[in-house]
């Protein structure tokens, strides 16, 4: 009788496909995973603690660094919470600009996901194609606010910059281009048998599990729960526009892929509609000189590309928050990983982990 034993494999924090500095301590039997213990916190920067010493405006650049793939949404989460607490009115054009940037950012974020996910599965080229299209979006943002990743674009009461001349046309061109380009992605990826083999039936969880783990975003919708904060707890001016919430059927990673591709299409649809109605106007509302948020407690969530990005503010009436807590969707979504990985193959680990779509900057706060 051969003596067999389980092996402890330490994956990360430096590993090509843990998407940053996630560390997984895995017990494996051959290549079959018996137990996983995710170790996080390698990128913890104490944003919540820092925020207690910062004014509301100063917090905004810090939020850029949480979910660095979709910083616009992060900007919006904190700005939105502050505005709601203060009861400010935001000019229409500012809201439209915010929606355009947020939806473009969602497209960019999902493109990064598609690209890196295919890279995890071993395909190189889709990654670069996705990044090319993302590059267009980043260049648009660069023109708009002067940065490609850490935008610091939104302000309490509006946005910092108005769209430069011709910018909206460029956005429209991009939307039209991207709508066509999606077909290329489907040609390249969606029909690829190896990709289908790798993703079909992988990482399935039930609706009950998803709710219990408080998954959000595509990770929840893939189980068939049509839950999108843009519609169900509508913020900004999303209620004015038509878009659908794609949901999954089987709940496997393949479904997640199709879901995110559809979300890209829906986001483009929203951007197109916004471009149709946006008018000239002020981009900054009436805001007091020093932002003093009235006493109270406030929680609100916005739909980031990864799920419900919440902002819980406790204010004591000063110009700095007493406590600022971010509900970071990646943090919640990652929790289900040990459950999903039990009994899976190591190759599936990468496929499942990638499917969750985590951003470590956000997981670690």
């Amino acid at each position, binding site marked *: 009788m051969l003596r067999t034993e389980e092996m402890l494999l330490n994956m990360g924090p430096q590993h*090509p*496909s843990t998407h940053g500095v996630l560390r997984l301590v895995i017990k494996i039997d051959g290549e079959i995973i018996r137990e996983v213990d995710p170790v996080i916190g390698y990128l913890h920067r104490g944003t919540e603690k820092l925020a207690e010493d910062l004014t509301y405006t100063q917090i905004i650049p810090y939020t850029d660094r949480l979910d660095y793939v979709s910083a616009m949404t992060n900007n919006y989460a904190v700005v939105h919470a502050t505005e709601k607490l203060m009861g400010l009115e935001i000019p229409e054009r500012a809201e439209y600009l915010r929606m355009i940037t947020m939806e473009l950012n969602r497209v960019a974020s999902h493109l990064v996901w598609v690209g890196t996910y295919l890279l995890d599965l071993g*395909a190189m080229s889709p990654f670069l*194609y996705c990044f090319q299209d993302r590059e267009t979006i980043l260049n648009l943002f660069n023109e708009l606010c002067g940065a490609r990743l850490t935008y610091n674009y939104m302000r309490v009461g509006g946005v910092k910059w108005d769209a430069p001349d011709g910018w909206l046309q460029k956005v429209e061109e991009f939307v039209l281009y991207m709508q066509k380009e999606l077909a290329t992605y489907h040609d390249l990826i969606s029909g690829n048998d190896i990709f289908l083999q790798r993703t079909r039936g992988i990482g399935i969880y039930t609706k009950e599990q998803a709710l219990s783990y408080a998954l959000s975003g595509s990770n929840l919708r893939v189980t068939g729960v049509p839950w999108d904060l843009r519609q169900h707890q509508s913020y900004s001016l999303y209620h004015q526009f038509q878009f659908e919430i794609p949901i999954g059927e089987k709940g496997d990673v393949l479904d997640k892929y199709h879901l995110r591709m559809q979300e890209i299409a829906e986001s483009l649809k929203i951007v197109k509609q916004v471009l149709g109605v946006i008018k000239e106007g002020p981009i900054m509302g009436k805001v007091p000189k020093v932002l003093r948020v009235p006493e109270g407690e406030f929680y609100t969530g916005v739909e980031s590309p990864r799920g419900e990005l919440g902002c819980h503010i406790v204010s004591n009436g000063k110009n700095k928050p007493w406590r600022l807590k971010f509900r970071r969707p990646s943090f919640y979504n990652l929790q289900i990983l040990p459950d999903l990985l039990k009994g899976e*193959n*190591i190759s599936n680990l*990468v496929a499942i982990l990638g499917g969750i779509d985590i951003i470590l900057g956000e997981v670690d706060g």
Partner: protein
Amino acid sequence: MDVFFYLGPIILMLLLLGFVTYAILFERKVIGWIQNRPGPNQVGPWGLFQTIADVLKLLLKEDVVPGKADRSLFKLAPIIAFVPAFAILAVIPFTETWQFGDFAVGLLYYIAISSITIIGILTGAWASNNKYSLLGGMRSAAQMISYEIPLVLSVVGIVMTTGSLDLNDIVLAQKKVWFIVPQFLAFLIFLIASLAELNRTPFDLPEAESELVAGYHVEYTGFRFAFFMLAEYVYVFAMASLTTCLFLGGWLPLFGLTMIPGILWFLLKFSLVVFSLFWIRATMPRLRVDQLMQFAWKVLLPLSLLNIFLTAIFKEIPVLSSFY
């Protein structure tokens, strides 16, 4: 003749190194173009010296042997992996005259010797005393042994047709029509199996960067690592040559264009095969281990048996038998 006998291998070795150098560059360029970028273009004109610079860098690197590794095995492994890769080139007929060892069982020799490399890989993986490399080595062993079988069986059809294991005879038997036409099924099986033998995408599980970091050579640095890489690319060279000989008519010209020398024809076909290897690499994701095994045993093996069966039948059919 005697001079050529002794100098030939050295020339071949140098040629081979040249090939490897430029195959790597070519691969990077092709993948670069596919991904809308120019590829390496900084070192030398058109990036021509890029690989040379890379190799120099590798040679200058510190030679690290992990403390817990089995030192002697660790050092031996790259050599075991590389030597067979070079040895198999002896039987490849580049042209009618350009061949080093013309013996009757050339094909068998190729297949037998090439499977020794797996021992080197497994040794290296085991000796590194690293879990990732162990997993990579195990995968590699399982994969290469599994795919050897369909690889060999797919060639059986050709052997049946020509009645010889001598690669020269096989090439010459393709004067009328290349074997890619009558043996198309075998060609597909051979191509897939050879991709797997070469550990190239979509079968690059032993190195599976996103899972096992670098697989069996994760602990290797410097020139030992270079040896593994060299072995890999020599196999690309050998496998592309073999494919050319078996299915694409070796040095035989197309359309009766005999004024173009045979070696050029060979190189042309050979480059086509190499290009398609790179092209596939740039497009495909990676298979999963269990699917990979299932694919070998459940799909490729029955198919190659079917191919043998069909060849046997076609040989008996009067009209078709001239092709078989």
